[in-house]
């Protein structure tokens, strides 16, 4: 890897200290044992089909003052920030494009992952996520309303504990709405991990890690599926699958995903409505203050007029 002249670099041979701890090397089976306890509960106490969105979902807008619209989503440990900027002319383009474009970029913080330090330069995973995010958002945005312009959507993942693409899509949808970019519907996404017969809804990082790792026995289902939906229109905008599984399995989990995506919608709606109400109240207050000032000014004018008339 060439040396990065634009940053400070550490020594070449540094390795994470976790490599030398006792529980670094564990076999697949050991890890698998750890995921679920006897009562078929997961490590964080959830049931297999229970998403974090029910209890540990936290979202807000207006986090970034410099951006047109922004959103922050927290799914227990997974923390994602997204900001959307004003439309600008598409750079380096000669032809006129009928539809506006979305420029999406997903970036992991260097300290976001447990297993390794993320490089500063974009790696393959970040690029793949950026493309997936763009594909998921494009059908939801009314792109014909801003021809020849592009809207920048930047997602920054502060902490990665699974389902980060789903969180990124949710955050980006919220931020786009916050930036008042016209959209057809609220866009939500959910992901699940499949390990053998078991289906983990809204997986954590450990579960995702295991789902991608292929077990020795061939033919077992394993992988991660992320699906984003516009629930009102009943349309799927993006479907991303990693790993291998049979067709029955995919059709079965699609139903689960659809249901999960729908359950997130009220959460997003709540944040958006709250936002509008807040804006409205603020405006009312400002108007009231302006009226007060005007009244004070008028009273003073009257006073001066009186003094003038009196000579």
């Amino acid at each position, binding site marked *: 890897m060439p040396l990065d*002249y*634009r*940053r*400070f670099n550490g020594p070449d041979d540094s390795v994470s200290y976790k490599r030398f701890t006792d529980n670094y090397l564990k076999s697949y089976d050991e890890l698998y044992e750890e995921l679920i306890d006897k009562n078929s509960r997961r490590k964080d106490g959830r049931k297999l089909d229970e998403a974090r969105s029910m209890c540990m979902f936290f979202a807000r807008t207006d986090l970034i003052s410099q951006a047109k619209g922004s959103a922050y989503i927290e799914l227990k440990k997974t923390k994602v920030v997204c900001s959307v900027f004003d439309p600008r002319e598409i750079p380096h383009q000669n032809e006129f494009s009928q539809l506006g474009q979305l420029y999406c970029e997903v970036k992991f913080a260097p300290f976001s992952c447990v297993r390794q330090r993320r490089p500063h330069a974009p790696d393959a995973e970040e690029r793949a996520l950026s493309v997936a995010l763009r594909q998921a958002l494009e059908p939801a945005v009314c792109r014909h309303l801003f021809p020849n312009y592009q809207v920048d959507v930047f997602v920054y993942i502060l902490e990665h504990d699974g389902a980060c693409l789903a969180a990124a899509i949710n955050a980006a949808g919220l931020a786009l709405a916050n930036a008042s970019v016209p959209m057809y519907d609220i866009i939500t996404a959910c992901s699940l991990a499949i390990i053998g017969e078991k289906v983990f809804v809204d997986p954590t990082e450990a579960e995702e890690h295991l789902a991608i790792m292929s077990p020795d026995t061939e033919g077992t289902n394993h992988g991660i599926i992320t699906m984003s939906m516009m629930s009102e229109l009943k349309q799927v905008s993006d479907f991303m699958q990693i790993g291998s599984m049979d067709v029955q399995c995919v059709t079965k989990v699609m139903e689960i995903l659809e249901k999960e995506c729908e359950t997130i919608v009220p959460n997003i709606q709540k944040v958006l409505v709250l936002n509008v109400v807040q804006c409205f109240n603020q405006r009312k207050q400002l108007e009231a203050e302006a009226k007060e000032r005007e009244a004070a000014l008028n009273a003073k004018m009257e006073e001066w007029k009186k003094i003038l008339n009196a000579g």
Partner: protein
Amino acid sequence: MGMEKNVSKDFKLKPMKCELNFLSKSDGSTILSQGDTVAVVSVNGPLDIKSTSQSIEKSTLEVLYCTKGGKPSVADRYKENVIRQTCETAILGSLYPRTGITVTIQELEDYGGLLSCCLNCTCLALLNSGVSMRCVYAAVTCAVDESGDIVLEPPKHQLQTARAVMTFVYDSREKSLVTSFTEGMFSEDTYKEALARCHAASDLIFSFYRDIVSKYANVI
């Protein structure tokens, strides 16, 4: 056409030697040595630049700093920024809107105080190029040695053992501080004393500028 002038009156500044029009192809160029530290600067401009970096209010200043090794680093960007911001306050950029002025600096020898040598050299090169300027400026480096005394323009071995190194840039009109940057730790009193000492020493550099320019005016 080399000009020599030894400026060491009350303060001990390193002997400065300077030659203007050192490079034949650029609009203005200077080689300056302060003691053993040497730098060459060439100035080109105002010239046409690509429309994305043009500014409608003033000329865009571009500073390129080349080290002896040639490898770029974050520290070089910092030096470029220091020099660019200093030049920007000195140049009357609003006279040349939508143009660019390029300043290229090549380090030749570093025996301490390189950045202040580069700054002074840049100022002379700008004078030589004929770009309109609001004022000239002078950079002075001083060090705080182990016993807490202030040494003006320290030699290299003193820099390595010094507690702190400070560089101040003063302008010629109001004699006020344009740029400053420091290394190491020091107390407020030391800081004020160093400011005053460098302030006084900057006069010597200004008189050196005056001599150089008047001598070259005769030659040309």
